[in-house]
């Protein structure tokens, strides 16, 4: 098993009282799965994804990631775990505007302390695979949305993570571009990478092996 959520709750306290975002979420993911999370806006999909990505903590409940109790371990270990095994893809791409395509993809490797020659060959491989060699010196603003998302995915997978978390990765793209991205995910999944994506599109959700429906913070069905 790759990860497991046990009785996870997430709430925010305010003057008006306690607002529950996630309620009693229980959820296992096996290695190699391709999961699509669906649900109306505000139902807690992003929150769930952030918890899985260790960027946010549950208010209550347990989270095991490859047998490690994420809810118990220290910040430092958690970021090690995260750095090593998880890649993130965003709806708004979130590339660094001041860096070129090449440099954006290279950035995670810098933080992994990799040597320059190794970095070069890894980035070159990925650029090659994504057919973006010609664009490596362009800045994000010079690319189309689909191309930017490709860079986002390239950046997420360059560290060879076990798990990719994607929050509406095609939300800002037209259907042709979206399809390309989904094909890419499919391909990555076949290579053994576990993928959890949030999507509003039934068609995209169908790429996955399992669909989870979130409604008002609860998993339905």
């Amino acid at each position, binding site marked *: 098993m790759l990860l497991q959520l046990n009785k996870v709750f997430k709430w925010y306290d305010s003057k008006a009282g306690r607002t529950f975002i996630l309620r009693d979420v229980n959820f296992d993911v096996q290695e190699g799965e391709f999961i699509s999370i669906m649900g109306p806006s505000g139902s807690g999909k*992003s929150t769930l994804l*952030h918890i899985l990505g260790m*960027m*946010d903590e549950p208010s209550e409940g347990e989270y095991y990631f490859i047998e490690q109790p994420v809810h118990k371990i220290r910040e430092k270990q958690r*970021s090690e775990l*995260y*750095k090593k095994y998880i890649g*993130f893809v*965003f709806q708004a791409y*979130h*590339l*660094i*505007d*001041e*860096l070129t395509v090449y*440099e954006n993809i*290279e*950035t*995670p490797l*810098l*933080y*992994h302390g990799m040597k320059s020659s190794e970095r070069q060959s890894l980035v070159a491989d990925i650029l090659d695979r994504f057919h973006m060699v010609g664009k490596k010196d362009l800045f994000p603003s010079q690319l189309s949305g689909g191309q930017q998302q490709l860079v986002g995915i390239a*950046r*997420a997978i360059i*560290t060879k993570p076990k798990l990719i978390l994607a929050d509406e990765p095609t939300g800002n793209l037209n259907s042709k571009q979206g399809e390309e991205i989904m094909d890419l995910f499919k391909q990555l999944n076949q290579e053994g990478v576990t993928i959890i994506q949030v999507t509003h599109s039934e068609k995209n959700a169908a790429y996955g092996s399992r669909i989870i429906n979130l409604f008002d913070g609860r998993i339905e069905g």
Partner: protein
Amino acid sequence: MLRNYFKIAFRNLQKNKAFSFINILGLSVGMACCMLILLYVQNEISYDKHHTRAEDMYRVGTTFVTTDQTKNMPYTPAPMAFTLKADFPEVEQATRVFVPFNEDKAIFKLAENGKVSKSFYESKGYMADSTFFDLFSYKFIEGVPHTALNEPNSVVVSEEIAQKLFGNQSALNKIVHIASSNGNIDFKITGVFRPDKLSTIDGRFFMSLSSGEMGAYVRSARNFAFNNMFYTFIRLQPGSNPQALEKKLTAFINKYAGADMKAAGFKKKQFLEAVSDLHLKSEDNGQMAGKGSISYVYLLTSIAIFTLLIACINFMNLSTARSGKRAAEVGIRKVVGAEKAMLISQFLGESLLLSILGLVIASVLVFLFLPVFNQLASTSIHIEVSQHVFTFLGFIALAIITGLIAGSYPAFYLASFQPIKVLKGKFTNTLAAVNLRRGLVIFQFSISIILILASLVVWKQMNYLKDQSLGFKQAQQVVIPLRTKTTKSSYEALKTEIQKNSQVVSAAAAGSYPGIFSARDQNFYTDGKTGAESVNVKLNDVDYNFIETLGFKVISGRPFSKNFAADTNSRIVLNEKAVAAFGYTPENVIGKRLHFDWNNEVFDYEIIGVVKDFHYEGLQQSIGRFGFLLDRNQNYNYMVVNVNTSSMESMLQFMETQWKKFNPEEPFEYTFMDQDFQRNYDTEQRMGTIVSYFTFIAIFISCLGLYGLATFTAEQRIKEIGIRKVLGASITNIVQLLSKDFLKLVLIALLIAGPIAWYAMNEWLQKFAYRIEIQWWMFAIAGCMALLIAFLTVSFQAVKAALINPVKSLKTE
């Protein structure tokens, strides 16, 4: 990793041109100020550090204690130096220096084939013992230091004088005629030195102390109580304790001068001052090089640091204000695996890059503005790569420290962003950050306001000093120095000729005149008292109509007059302070007698007149006891001509023509009494000017920062402004909206700066016995100025924002 950081830093600089411009300009100007001050401080502390074994060298000073006052002076009597050497084994070597009083220049004459071929005045001629160059290290380019002053009538001159005399030829062993009050003497040049190091003993030529009349006096001088007019320098054996020696000097002086001092009614104590401290720490260096001031060194250093701090604050404020833009980057970097420490070092790297860029520009600025600074501070600093290695290292350290100070807060602030918040787009500046930013703006403007107030107070005080009535007529008074025997003896004839001109009101002469240093004083006692009850009175030996020529107001009795033959001998005119000190009133003092004892003889003076108190020193000093004597030897140092002319030019030409009749071999030189008096305020005036320049710079950098913040605020609120305009807000409304917050900060700064400036400037004013009161309107002016400057800065951006077409700004959202 580093390359990645630098790349991003550079691209950020390029992308945000206004922001980069403000920061780099501010930092480089701030750093340039610090660098200049660093050079200045280094220059100031370098004085007299270069002498071999400078750490063992001391000057012997004297504390005079009379019944009513204690006074420190750098002078000692002639026999002091070598008696010290003989009596105390720890005194390894001694030397005396004599600087003629009231004689700023001597005349150099070069004779060729029996004719005078060159003749010019030279200032800073010191007389010194043969041991002088044994103690003090001068760089000789000709001659041998240790033996140079062995013979009487030998002189060591500076390279510049040697060149004036002989061009590029060797000056060694040549004969030059030097005429001064010490006589007209043919000197042999035994050495030429290059003054490449700064020294308080700033002579331009050194004559053997055994030359001329002074030589004769020095050889015969045995008295330890009187004629305190020589500087005594000693070098101690390595490792000796100066404090221990100082303690023994009380017994020493009592042994040699006790009886004389008792009879004359004063006591003396000796003290030692380290030669390397003379420039900055001595309270009085007499006639030698103008003193530096340790407090001005501190003042300038703190202003420079504050200026740089203001620039650092700009960086902090603009970085954190703009952090919304950087927040996304921080979030992404964290998501792809960056740890906090890595981000901190990235942002610190950016500020370091900026400060190093600033250093480069600052170096150019220093290079460009060093001449201006030298002029302002009246220094002659020049940068030499070989001499300033440590200075350069200091500059680099300065840049690094600046980068760290400016960058640390933004680095920690930015690096602590939570990626989740940032990526959700929920980023807002925290209230703490906003408040800190406000606090820093208040701090910047407090400093600016303090500086404005300081400049204002200095300016007012200087004007006050200029406008103050001195108690005599200082305008239209031409002062002509009578430096040599020839000129002194031709005075009467010259006076007669000059007074023939109808535009000359009157002419007179004296030993000194108000506003210049004078050492002449005497301890007097009145009838029925003894020498032990003496009162010290400053004296001036004058010509008959000197009192009338300067327009001193006689309030009782009469001034000197040729109608009273006895005036030449033993008559005195006092000022009010002196009369009061002797316990009389101006009315009942006339006809009373003053006495002093000298060599077991009693001298008597009859008081014939009283003049109203007048300022004989700068207004730093309060008026003391003063008296005029007729100089029966007519040994005057200065002639004073009171003129009434609209054409000073032709008047001076007339005087020169007359002068040449009697002194064909001596150049005609003159000064104006009012300008000479103002010279007492040179240091303060200079500091005032420097402070006002720094004020300008500090305000400029503060405004740069404010401008940046205003730009940012306007950008941030562009949508709000658009909506308000659509709803009917006028441009004035918008400008008000955007300026109000900043102006509030400036007002708070005024409240903080006011008391601090008041306290500091009040302290400064204590230096002056006569001073202005700090008035509320000065605060009003400083406040209004700061507000106006801030308003202009902010409103420029506000108006720009208000003028933007709302349709445009709303569409960009």
